[in-house]
């Protein structure tokens, strides 16, 4: 079967720097690019695209099987729905939408059109996290009780734009907390039951005053073993060291993932038990976006599922929305209460 033919929706930085190389590594050469702002095409002259267009219908009418959507977060829903209606398979950047109702509409549109929908969370497919989930599944730490994610970093100067802007989807929660949720949810096997959070605006260069450091607690539901679990995250744009990490705790042991949340760094996995500390051998040579594209292409061929499905992306978004609601209201937020209002 011939390889998937991709069109790009959004002339974005992540598309050029991460996804085009990932497509090429999987033998895919994107042929078409849509953006509402033709000024952005100037950065794409070298990419040998057949079509650069500001007309979405023109892109969707071209010879493509699938689209990769990395437009502004508030545009994802309309772009994804149009792609689904044109029967194109979809990879959409995270967060997949800014409201639960938009996210649900995207999932429903993909289901109805019978197309594969993937959300481009790069961490769930990481060999580090896959290894950690396997260690838990193999009973190496006993009953799973808790996890902590340190995902506080320093936002590079060249990225201090929309991420800090006081607009829908701006701030650290939609940028980073969704990533934490994308790995915590599959670790605990379900979305959390409730969340609470505190947030501040710290950086002198954050003139918009949006939250640039947020700490969150999540309660995960009682699993097969009948025990509720707790997770804690710190997401920030203001903290240069000591780097990201994740700890997973069980009754019999713990798993430490070094450099757990980065896009590039190899990272490490350690198993701590009564027997001592064991460095777990993990092959981290594979690029995280290559892994996503490979799984997506396989799913399009009917083999397996994407690394993060539309439902996985929706579950991660729901956590971010609940965190925002907790920050706004000063309450612990039950996810079942969120409903379609957000």
């Amino acid at each position, binding site marked *: 079967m011939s390889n998937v033919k991709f069109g790009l929706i959004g002339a974005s930085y992540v598309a050029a720097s991460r996804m085009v190389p990932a497509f090429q590594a999987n033998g895919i050469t994107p042929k078409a690019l849509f953006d509402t702002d033709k000024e952005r095409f100037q950065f794409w002259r070298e990419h040998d695209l057949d079509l650069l267009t500001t007309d979405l219908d023109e892109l969707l009418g071209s010879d493509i099987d699938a689209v990769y959507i990395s437009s502004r977060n508030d545009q994802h829903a309309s772009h994804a729905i149009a792609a689904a209606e044109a029967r194109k398979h979809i990879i959409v950047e995270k967060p997949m939408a800014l409201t639960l109702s938009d996210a649900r509409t995207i999932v429903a549109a993909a289901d109805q059109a019978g197309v594969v929908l993937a959300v481009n969370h790069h961490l769930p497919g990481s060999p580090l996290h896959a290894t950690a989930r396997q260690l838990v599944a193999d009973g190496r730490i006993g009953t799973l009780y*808790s996890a902590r994610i340190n995902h506080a970093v320093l936002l590079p100067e060249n990225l201090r734009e929309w991420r800090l802007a006081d607009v829908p989807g701006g701030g650290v929660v939609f940028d980073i907390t969704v990533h934490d949720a994308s790995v915590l949810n599959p670790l605990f096997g379900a979305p959390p039951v409730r969340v609470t959070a505190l947030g501040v605006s710290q950086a002198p260069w954050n003139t918009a005053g949006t939250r640039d450091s947020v700490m969150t607690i999540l309660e995960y539901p009682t699993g097969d073993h009948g025990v509720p679990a707790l997770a804690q995250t710190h997401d920030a744009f203001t903290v240069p060291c000591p780097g990201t990490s994740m700890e997973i705790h069980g009754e019999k042991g713990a798993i430490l993932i070094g450099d757990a949340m980065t896009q590039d760094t190899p990272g490490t996995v350690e198993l701590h038990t009564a027997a001592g500390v064991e460095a777990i051998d993990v092959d981290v040579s594979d690029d995280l976006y290559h892994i996503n594209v490979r799984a997506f292409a396989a799913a399009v061929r009917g083999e397996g599922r994407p690394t993060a499905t539309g439902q996985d992306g929706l579950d991660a978004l729901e956590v971010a929305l609940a965190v925002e609601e907790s920050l706004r209201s000063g309450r612990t937020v039950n996810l079942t209460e969120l409903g379609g209002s957000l």
Partner: protein
Amino acid sequence: MTDAVEGGVCVVGGLPASPFTIGLVGASNIAMTRMLPAFAALGIGVRGLYDNEPRRFRYWADSCVEGQTTNLDQLLSGDIDAVYISTRNDQHLAEAVAVAKAGKHILVEKPMTLSIADAQTMIDAATHNGVVLAVNHHLVASPLHVNGRQLVADGRIGNLVGARINNAGTLPAHLRGWRLSNAPGAGVILDLTVHDASVLNPLFGTTPLEITAMAATQPAWNDTSAADSVMTLIRYGPSSSGADRLAFAHDSFTVAAPSSYLEILGDQGAVIRDAMNQDTAGTVELHTSEGRAPVDVDCGDDLYQILLRAFRAAIHGEGQPTVTGTEGLLALQVALAAEQSAAEGRTVEISKLQLH
């Protein structure tokens, strides 16, 4: 005692030390395993042991502590300068007030009480009777934490923006008594979170403003309603640069987690490993854009001896105890706010914390 030997000097281990005698209120595990060795090392005489449960005295048969009694007045009428209180947490207030009225200085275990109003009553009783009140938070004066605060004060961290504490571990089977019961003051928050607060408060140097927390009851061996695992978030008031700061703490009796730590976050970072233990030496590491460098810390001193030396000096009018009654109250506030937040499912403002 003080009158009888005033001006005398007894020599312990070659070092001159002021004569000093203490009575024990509470035949506890910590009194025996931690404080008796510390008293002995500093030449502090132990005279009298009170507990309201005589069955506990049998564990003290070999302790050489004489004067076991179930009558607190009898202990307080003895020839002692001070009292160390390590009874159940809900008994601290009544005993401390009685001790203050008897004119004895007070070293009380943490948490000092189970309510803010009670802590204030204890502070007032000590002040009114002119006795020193110290709370036995062993971590505050740890060389590791002193060093961490010094790194911040010296500008080595830059602008302090946050801190994270891992204080999760497995509660040893022999300590699964009152800590995990349905009694007042049981549970992980008043046992461990109060310690976290005792080191975070002086690290940030500003008041905690609000707290949110979630608690759980996890392992099969805890069949009580007492929480054995809690995660807490704290917002501290602004630094000199004007921005609020965040801290989180994870306290647990249930997980086989690796060693405890405190991460101090700023333009640079510092990581203190084995930060929350009673014994382990621990390390401090400075993290900068250039990499990591160990910070030299002398961990040779016993944490309880550090507290006792400061307590003894304060009694002699030199300086303050490591943790004063007021500082103990501030740490208690954080723990009580975490309990209230976990129970009510909302963020609790410290200024609106229930007093009772």
